[in-house]
């Protein structure tokens, strides 16, 4: 199980004055369901996801995975942990348009030695219904691009999915497909944490974490 304990993150404003961007006393994230992180813009939703993913080491506190602090791991080990544990979905997909859909999904396989079967990327694309024949992801519709991003996030079959505004740039039909995918992943036992303003997605979440100016107002009991 994933937990945050006593985590705080401090940034500096434009004048160089430090301010607390995130302060979490204790939050636990239950696997097998969707946990929605909500709050106004600038409330620290993305920062929370970055801290969970180990991209932003907290000034204080720990991110705990299976009773071990991830925050205290050396960077190389944290990278490895992230690769095995976290699947990251970005609001604007962050695909590489110069690569094919298959090239994008298979790219994590080039990060280091792994035991992923060679046809894993192709299977994922088939599963998400994305045509492999396209020369670039730039020619795909936004819905298809989001599905490629989904497939890429699942390349290492991670137990935790972090989705930052996954439906924000999609039309309603595609947004519903994304919500379905997130529900499916949760039903497979994965921990799905999503930062979102989307009411439809929020309605599917079992737990909610509300943020206001970096402070967690409601966390789920663990």
């Amino acid at each position, binding site marked *: 199980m994933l937990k945050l304990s006593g985590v705080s993150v401090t940034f500096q404003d434009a004048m160089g004055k430090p301010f607390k961007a995130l302060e979490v006393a204790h939050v636990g994230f239950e696997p097998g369901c969707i946990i929605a992180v909500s709050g106004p813009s600038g409330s620290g939703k993305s920062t929370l996801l970055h801290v969970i993913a180990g991209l932003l080491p907290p000034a204080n506190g720990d991110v705990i995975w299976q009773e071990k602090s991830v925050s205290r791991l050396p960077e190389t080990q944290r990278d*490895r942990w*992230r690769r095995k544990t976290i699947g990251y979905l970005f609001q604007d997909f962050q695909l590489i348009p110069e690569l094919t859909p298959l090239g994008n999904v298979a790219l994590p396989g080039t990060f280091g*030695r792994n035991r992923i079967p060679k046809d894993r990327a192709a299977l994922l694309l088939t599963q998400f219904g994305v045509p492999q024949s396209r020369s670039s992801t730039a020619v795909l519709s936004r819905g298809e691009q989001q599905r490629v991003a989904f497939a890429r996030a699942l390349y290492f079959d991670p137990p935790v999915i972090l989705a930052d505004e996954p439906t924000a740039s999609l039309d309603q039909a595609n947004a519903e497909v994304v919500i379905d995918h997130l529900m499916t992943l949760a039903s497979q036992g994965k921990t799905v944490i999503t930062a979102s303003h989307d009411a439809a997605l929020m309605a599917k979440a079992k737990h909610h974490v509300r943020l206001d100016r970096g402070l967690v107002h409601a966390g789920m009991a663990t």
Partner: protein
Amino acid sequence: MNPLPFVAAIIRKDWWATVAFILFIALAAALGVAMTAQEKALRSGSARAADHFDLVVSAPGSQTDVLFKTVFLRPGTVELLAPEVTAEILADNRAVFAAPLGFGDSHDGDAIAGTTRDLVTAISGGALAEGRMFESYEEAVVGAHSPLAIGAAFHAEHGHGEEKGAEGEHGTILKVVGRMAATGSPWDRAIVVPIEQMWLVHNLPTGHNPLGGKILGPPFDAGFLPGVPAVIVKPKTLSDAYRLRGAYRSERSTAFFPAEVLLELYGLMGDIRQLMSLMALGTQALVIGVIVAGVIALLRVHRKQFATLRALGAPRGYILASIWLYVAIIVGTGSVSGLALGWVMAKAVSSLVATSTGIALSPVIGWSEVALVAGLVVVGCLLALVPAIRFYREPIINGLR
């Protein structure tokens, strides 16, 4: 870890900048390669051209000047060797042959040299390629690349190059009877006439008693010898060569092996080449430095992509390897292209030099050029670490914000 697919994507996205970077490096490398290849070609070409000139005896003065006028047939005048010294060396029994050499006239810009059949045969490598040797004062043998065909008749003109005056043509009609084998030297475009003909048209004694008729070639009559610009001597033995050189290094004459003068010139050229090579390497390093700065500016656009890759689990080393590989590909491709481009440039310059001097140059890419390019690649690969480390050290979060 295999950053190639990602690097290929960067190249595809920024292909114009990548191609421009490669071109800059290729040009910088090509200049260095062309310079060293050209210098080597010039050495071997000039040495080959001087091959058949064992020992040159001339009036005291600049040996380099005499070398250029005799071996390389450059236009100009030299002091004449006194007739008594000329007579002495022409009769020296330590020589297989001693050939007086006269020049100063031309035809259609090509030098006309006057000498004996022995020297013509020696320059032509033992035998003519076509036709026969001159048998009378009015006959001529031409170099392998002379535009004059066998049987062609022509007038000799006074002077050669800038020395050419307004005196116009000599009255005698000369006829081409033979063609020498190619030598890769300015002699390939030369017209060679009997030395007696050259003396005759300049109203000088012909080296023979006029009462004996138009005698051609040695032995010469000491009483009828004029001064000559140079005498080319083929010594019988190596020790004779040194003895002859010693004997004619006096107040009245100088004697030298063309090779020793060329070696001095090569020494000077070598110093200049070393300096220019260093300057070329410095320029190349500067070009790479500028390109590294350009790459840093270019890759700032990719910061978000680097951060995304880190978020997807890429280690820092993957980013370092990707950027290093990208710059290394630019440097490597540019350098190898520069090697090829340098060879093409050297060939082009050689062709120009051959046209203006007649010295056949064959530039080749050897170890020194490969070493120059390898040095460039090593410097480039080291400098490639600068942008690689620059982005390696960048916190992931900066790219995600």
